[in-house]
């Protein structure tokens, strides 16, 4: 009996996860902590790639440094793990040199909004054809949990042990105000909506930005009386979906609802379209 049970378990284990073929087995086990939100975002991303039927030889994934930065290494895709803050410039180079590629940036808030913040706003302003998924864990997780540009006022981190005294970014408003054509915010637990949103962003032309709020139980949660599942539960309990909400009004408050949803979905000529347009005009003139 015992033998049979364990064999059955082994067979089930052998069947593995349906997304196993999408991962580089040699890099697994991953480094993420138990309860971390990044894994489910990676899964949602992979499912979106599948349902959108994105051709693998056109898929590129770029990430920076940090916990989320590891995504690029785990995916069986053409991927690049850049230096801290530089996934967007890397992705820009890739996209402009090879416009046929579908270039995605998956990185964290510290990487994209602190050390790489300038690239984020300028890529959105240019409306360069990139899909960005920014996993916001409210701190620098990889280095052990320091205060970052999204750390809520009063939150404890290793470099703000008695509470953060800086205002955080409202990332969705920042990027929307710079001109992104698609801006949304979801919880890492809301995998269904997240997947659909990523899929939707794939169909856009121009700069898209999805902020994913993810629990970081080990570094952020633990220091803020939100360990284990508590931070995730708090996010779920407080989240409220308001599609089309004005991004100016969706800064994450100290208390009360955390607004998620699709906030921006419009058209605006993308960088590549404008460039093509210019070329076409110049050619017309010269002939």
């Amino acid at each position, binding site marked *: 009996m015992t033998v049979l049970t364990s064999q059955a378990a082994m067979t089930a284990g052998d069947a593995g996860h349906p997304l196993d073929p999408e991962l580089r087995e*040699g890099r697994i086990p991953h480094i993420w902590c138990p309860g971390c939100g990044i894994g489910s975002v990676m899964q949602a991303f992979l499912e979106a790639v599948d349902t959108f039927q994105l051709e693998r030889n056109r898929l590129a994934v770029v990430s920076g440094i940090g916990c989320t930065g590891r995504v690029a290494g785990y995916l*069986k895709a053409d991927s690049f793990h850049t*230096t*801290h803050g530089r996934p967007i410039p890397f992705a820009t180079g890739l996209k402009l040199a090879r416009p046929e590629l579908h270039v995605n940036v998956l990185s964290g808030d510290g990487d994209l909004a602190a*050390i790489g913040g300038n690239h984020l706003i300028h890529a959105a302003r240019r409306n360069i054809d990139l899909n960005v998924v920014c996993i916001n864990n409210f701190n620098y997780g*990889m*280095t052990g949990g*320091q205060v970052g*540009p999204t750390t809520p006022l009063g939150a404890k981190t*290793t470099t703000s042990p008695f509470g953060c005294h800086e205002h955080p970014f409202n990332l969705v408003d920042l990027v929307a105000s710079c001109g992104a054509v698609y801006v949304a915010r979801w919880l890492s637990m809301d995998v269904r909506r997240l997947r659909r949103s990523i899929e939707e962003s794939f169909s856009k032309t121009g700069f898209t930005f999805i902020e994913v709020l993810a629990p970081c139980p080990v570094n952020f949660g633990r220091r803020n009386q939100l360990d284990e599942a508590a931070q995730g539960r708090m996010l779920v309990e407080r989240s409220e979906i308001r599609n089309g909400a004005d991004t100016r009004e969706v800064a994450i408050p100290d208390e009360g609802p955390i607004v998620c949803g699709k906030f921006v979905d419009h058209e605006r000529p993308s960088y590549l379209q404008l460039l093509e347009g210019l070329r076409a005009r110049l050619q017309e003139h010269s002939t």
Partner: protein
Amino acid sequence: MKRRLLTGNGAAAWAARLAGVDYVPAFPITPQTEIIESLANWIDRGEMPGRLVTLESEHSMLTAAGAAAATGVRVFSATSSQGLLYAMEMLYTVSGWRAPFVLVNVSRGLSSPITLEPDHNDILAARDSGFLQIHCATCQEVLDSVLLAYRLGEDNRVRLPVLVNMDGFYLSFTREPVEVPEAEAVAAFLPSFQAGEIRFRASAPESQAVAVLGGGPYSYFRYETHLAARIAIQVYDELADVFEQSFGRRHAAVECYRCEDADYLFVMIGSFATKARAAVDSLREAGWSIGLLRPRLFRPFPEAQVRRLLAGRRAVAVIDQNLSFGAGGVLYAELAAALYGEKAAPPVLASFVGGLGGRDIPPEEFYEIARLIRDAAERGETPPPRLLYTEAELRETRKLQAIAKVERAGLGAKS
């Protein structure tokens, strides 16, 4: 004086605390982060005066550090590897402001490929920046060197920022017993910063800045910085004496271990030199006449001392934990330049590169190096530069390459 079990990071933080720094601009990076975490904790608790702010990158961190130092307050910061490189533009810029402060660098190999473990290409990239450089081999030295660095940089004859270097992991995360001096003793050795003319007064500008200088004045200011750095050799030696009188520990600009009668020498910087030291002890037991030379001061480079200490040796092995692509080891080149034309220069100066990305240098390799330079001295010819690397390591790397090839094939790549 209290003995505490401190990591190199802890020792650096304690030194900043004892130095009574006023301002700490910070940005996290492995393996340095513990330094700024410790300081943040003390400052927020009110155990330490001063202000700490986490900026959005090392570039802004260094800019803030230089600006604060230019107002005449005492500034401390810390970084590592890519962080130091990201700040590089400002390193060169703020040294020209002649505003002293201390920056601790926790050495870590540079990208690409990426690594977390130490070698010295990061700190040596700052070699020509105008920052003075002190290299540490123990956690005690980290604490002591930061205190020394403040006196050195703030000295009226010098007025330059100083980098204090320790190796990531080997020192940053390794606990050693460290003598932490009493605050009063430190205050006596290192009084508060006498900024003199370095004082930012909006109402009374000291000078009128020009946007762009012609070559004449430009050369003047650049050479002034050079001369100030050169004077720092003499100032350092004076301070090493004062430090010894104050705390009973001597940190010479160039450490020479069991050198006096040695025919053969290893030359190394940083914590890996402690491995060479252990090898020297074993070789001495086996009857070898061998020692270790370890420059602590790397900028300014104390070439006169190095020249004197190397004179008359039969053969010298320079082990560089860095690589200047297309040239070789940086320390080797500096020593070769220092020895040129010297009558008593050792006939054999051999170059070895090892310890890249934290790769160990085991005792057997030191023994092999000793044997190689001894044989070279006997033959009278210098062996070609060599990378310390084993066949087993090459096989391991080939295996990884094979795996990558299979993975690539799995991704549908053509080759």
